[in-house]
């Protein structure tokens, strides 16, 4: 347990930065829309983590309140996103984003 006692806010920051980066790279390199959603969620969670860490640091709860907001919004976003994806799937029968290049130049 000693191990976990000297964990400072910086560790959290690093962790969330890593998470955020992971999400970003996921978005960057995956082609499957679903996976890409996941990555974005990952990024959002990274943000949440940061906020919580900070609100602990400043020890007041604003940050944590904000986290809830984020969760709600994220949920809404995902709902919309999935709806659009459904529609897309209905028209294209795939979730590969590479096919989405009708609009160009």
């Amino acid at each position, binding site marked *: 347990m000693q191990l976990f006692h000297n964990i400072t806010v910086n560790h959290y920051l690093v962790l969330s930065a890593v998470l955020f980066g992971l999400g*970003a790279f996921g978005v*960057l390199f995956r082609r499957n829309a679903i996976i890409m959603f996941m990555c974005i969620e990952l990024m959002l969670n990274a943000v949440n983590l940061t906020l919580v860490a900070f609100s602990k640091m400043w020890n007041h709860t604003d940050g944590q309140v904000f986290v809830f907001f984020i969760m709600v919004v994220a949920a809404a976003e995902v709902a919309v996103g999935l709806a659009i994806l459904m529609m897309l799937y209905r028209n294209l029968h795939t979730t590969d984003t*590479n096919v989405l290049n009708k609009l160009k*130049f």
Partner: protein
Amino acid sequence: MEKLVTLVPLFPLAGFLYIIFFGKGFSKGFIGTLASSTILLSFIVSVLVFTTQMHGAHPAVVKVFDWITAGSFKVDFSFLVDPLSSIYLLFITGVGFLIHVYSTGYMHDDEGFSRFMAYLNLFVFFMLILVLGDSYVTMFVGWEGVGVCSFMLIGFWYKDMKNNDAAKKAFIVNRIGDLGLIIGMCLLFAYTGTLKFDDLFISGSDISGIPGGVATAIGISLFIGAMGKSAQIPLHTWLPDAMAGPTPVSALIHAATMVTAGIYMVARSSELYAFNEVASQVIVWAGILTSILGATIALTQNDIKKVLAYSTVSQLGLMFVALGMGAYSTAVFHVITHAFFKALLFLGSGSVIHGMGGEQDIRRMGGLKKHMPVTHLTFLIGTIAIAGVFPFAGFFSKDQIVAVAFEENKIVFILSLIVSACTAFYMFRLYFLTFHGKFRGTHEQEHHLHESPKSMTIPLVILAALSVVGGFIGLPHAVGEEMGMHWHWLDHFLQDAVVMPSMHMTMGTELLLMVIATVVALSSIAYAWSIYKKRGVLADEDKDMKSSAQKLLYNKYWIDEIYDTIIRKPVDRISDFFGKFMEPKLIDGLVEGTGSLTKATGGIFRMLQSGSLSLYIFVFIIGLIAILLSL
């Protein structure tokens, strides 16, 4: 009294306007009388003005109206009445009147008669403005005005493109001179702040402040203007071509009046030249060269008017010699006498041409003596006068020039003697070939031969008389004393207007020079007589000209051809280059190029918008990283 001078140019103008706008439907007789009478009226007024000047009235400036105002530059439209302008008035209106009368006869059968008279009136108007103007600008008005009149009159028979080309050439060559004149005026204004004669010369003499180099530049550029008008090398080529116009025009414009505008202008600026050695030398040499050139070419010409034209060129050259040597009044003297006898000769030739039904080639003439006695007699007088035989008008004026040359520069002196020798020769060649021997023209021409009507012969007679006595206004000292007459009257008359040379020549030399001049003249007359009268030699046809010298002269030193190759062709070629390449390809190409360049870059930028989501994300994140790194 001076106020009246405004009327002098007014009459001809009125005549012009009336004929142009209301002249329709009037008889030729009426038009002719109207046109001539306007000039007569001006002549009368001129006489009045002249007499006042003769009785020593002070030079006066008569303001007509405000004209140009620009900051410190202010020019009124106003006239300067002084001895110089008044004497010019006199012979312009005088000779002008005679030639108007002559024209009523000469042009009688031409359908453009009234137009012709109108143009003549307009010309006289501008000529009067030229000599009356009290500043270079006002003078320039007349200067250009006579130019355009000569354009209209040379190209009077506009259906023949040859005439139009001659007219255009005259106008454009004159324009080159005018550019010089304009530059001269600009410089003058830049250094003195005025262009009025009385500020510059008479009262103020602001010109003393001009640095020497600039003064030379001014002198020369003004002289370039004179070259254009008075047909001096290298701008002389237009004058012979100008003979395409009706003969009265040649007489009035291209012999008596307009072409002497250059002399007038230089004389007017005598203060400027008097103390300017370089410019004066330029004038002398340009003058004497032109004189030689004209005289030599005239030796071989076979077109009666061309001969007279080249003789005019060479006479003008002599006048410039006088000017360049500081003998301004002498030049004016020669201008006047020349106006008399050259007008006479041209009108005479006109009468001949009229009689010959338009024929101008002396090789088709001969023996006209018996057919047209009056013409013959007057023409002979004119010939003697120009040849410079005592006591005809030409003798005195020319002799004065020679005398000055003797004083100033021996080489020029010799050359001027050669010129007068040539003059005597070609004039008598012309005379003999035209009036003596047997008729060489066609039969219907011979049948058609007749003496010209009174309206033409009377002016001839009057001018002949003037050519005889005209010289007495400038009798040399020696002769003057002998005859107990007023000598150098003209010089005394002009001394307020122009700078006077300091001539101190013993009577002995004066007489000697006269003798030399007379001998030269008489001997070459005799030579001409021996060839063309005694041996009855005829002028060669174009084809059988042998000696290259003869060819050279006959083709006028090929100067026109040379100009064609070194000026006209290059200009055309350059313009062509502009039109074909520079404009469409180069300049517009650059303009259009920017447009197509933009399009091209647009094409490249489009590629960024490939439409693939992954690229967009990639760019997004790269951008983000880039920014973060830039911190």
